[in-house]
């Protein structure tokens, strides 16, 4: 198979045609204008990017960043102990434990957000319970606000945090901990001085996955958020499907994609700067 290298060609051509070219067209459209009927006219200007700087859009962007940040921090606090617990289970229990954490990852955001709608809506499970138990006399407004969106994001993205942290804890050299304990370090000190710093690459990988996914999320705010809790994802969706302003929608998605890629590149740099960086960089995916 002398010419076996060409076997890579079909996939690369496919991705070139259905991934790279579409992205380039979006870049082009982001510099275009639109007619009142929603037609795209290529006249190369920066108006769509300038429009992004209007206070309304900047505040949606700030809100998106805030939600992403809170989601990331909370998923670390929830995911790390769980990943740690699974990683220290006996070997044969680790895989079932991990599968248990990953199953929700495979069920789509739509179904998972809807599950929370059933629980939180006015006649939902939680309000019905609280009313019956006599804690409240009026159903609480638990849905369609920022809190609900954050809850939905945390719920949806938690599995993204657990897997990379688990991998980094599982790969930790146990002899380091034995050495620490032989030298008289109490377990918590050993955890703080050895486990935590050495598993930071896993936390960083999880952070990237969760942060980027929450930046582009539109299903959760669409299903659980009200009109006021729109995020960048909803704004983009609106430009494409209701407002029919593709140039502005394209500019927004280029900003979103560029920010995501920037974070990924920063992450790789940070990992490669560390010892054994090459090993860990492979684990992001």
């Amino acid at each position, binding site marked *: 198979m002398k010419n*076996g*290298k*060409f*076997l*890579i060609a*079909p*996939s*690369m051509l*496919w*991705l*070139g045609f*259905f*991934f*790279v070219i*579409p*992205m380039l*067209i*979006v870049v082009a*459209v982001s510099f275009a204008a639109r007619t009142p009927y929603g037609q795209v006219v290529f006249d190369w200007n920066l108006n769509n990017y300038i429009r992004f700087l209007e206070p309304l859009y900047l505040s949606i962007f700030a809100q998106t960043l805030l939600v992403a940040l809170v989601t990331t921090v909370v998923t670390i606090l*929830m*995911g790390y*102990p769980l990943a*740690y617990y699974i990683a220290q289970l006996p070997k044969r229990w*680790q*895989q079932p434990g991990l*599968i248990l954490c990953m*199953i*929700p990852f*495979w*069920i*789509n955001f*739509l179904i*998972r957000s*809807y599950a929370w*709608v*059933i*629980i939180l*809506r006015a*006649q939902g*499970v939680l309000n019905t319970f609280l009313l019956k138990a006599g804690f409240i006399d009026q159903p609480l407004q638990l849905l369609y606000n920022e809190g609900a969106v954050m809850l939905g994001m945390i*719920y949806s993205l*938690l*599995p993204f945090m657990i897997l990379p942290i688990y*991998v980094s804890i599982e790969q930790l050299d146990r002899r380091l901990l034995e050495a620490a304990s032989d030298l008289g370090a109490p*377990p*918590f000190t050993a955890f703080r001085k050895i486990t935590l710093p050495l598993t930071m690459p896993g936390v960083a990988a999880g952070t990237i996955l969760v942060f980027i*996914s929450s930046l*582009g999320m*539109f*299903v959760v705010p669409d299903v659980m958020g009200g009109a006021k809790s729109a995020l960048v994802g909803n704004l983009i*969706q609106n430009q494409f*499907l209701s407002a029919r302003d593709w140039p502005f929608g394209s500019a927004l*998605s280029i900003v*979103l*994609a560029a920010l*995501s*890629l920037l974070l990924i590149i920063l992450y790789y740099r940070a990992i490669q700067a560390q010892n054994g960086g090459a090993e860990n960089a*492979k*684990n992001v*995916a």
Partner: protein
Amino acid sequence: MQKTWRSHLLLAYSLVILAFLYVPLIILAMYSFNDSRINAVWTGFTFKWYEQLFDNRRVLEALINTLIVGVSSTVVSTTLGTIAAIALHKYKFKMQSAINGLVYLPILIPEIVMGLSLLVLFSQAQIPLGKGSLILAHITFCLSFVVITVGARLDGMRSDYEQAASDLYATPWQCFRYVTLPLIMPGIVAGALIAFTLSIDDFVISFFVAGPNSTTLPLYIYAMVKRGISPEINALSTLMMVVEIVLVILAELLQPSHKAKAEE
């Protein structure tokens, strides 16, 4: 003493987090069997929402669309992805990092951006939106996952068998057909299962590129959710969850081990 106290606390915390992950899904499934249409009060066990689902022509159409798109995109992406994974495993490429970038980027880029970029492509290339455009889009996002899954299997494989086969004068084709292919078959099947799961589960990208006559199950669920709460949504969601859980566990069992998966 202190150690057990700490591990009990960790266990309790872990169980709370797992409950957080599963309780909403269990409640969702539970209420698909509740007799009452609107209220959260339990009024009795019933299968009627499932029966209504199977009588609903639009649900059946969505199911057929989902399966057509799922099977076609799985076949194409598994074939292309496996061939690419073998090439990546066997040969060193000059543009290795560009190739890796092209494989990983579709996974890393926000889904919504990929969805709208395909919508823009289809409209510029005047490809009508429908099952065809859905299949093209699904192949694109499944492809990377197949390359990575099959690649993990290839990397976890010992090369002695191939070595031995070629020492015994097997032609490269025989070596591939009788040695490599059987060895990586579990990886290919796992890749195909993952592709199929991703396809039948996809909402975001399908939302952008589906046409009026190509509604899939997730799109149908979305339309129902937008119209309001109904136990049929619970029933349909529950069925989808069960199918996906079975597929994912099958794919997981076919993976060599988590070690190999971690080393992707």
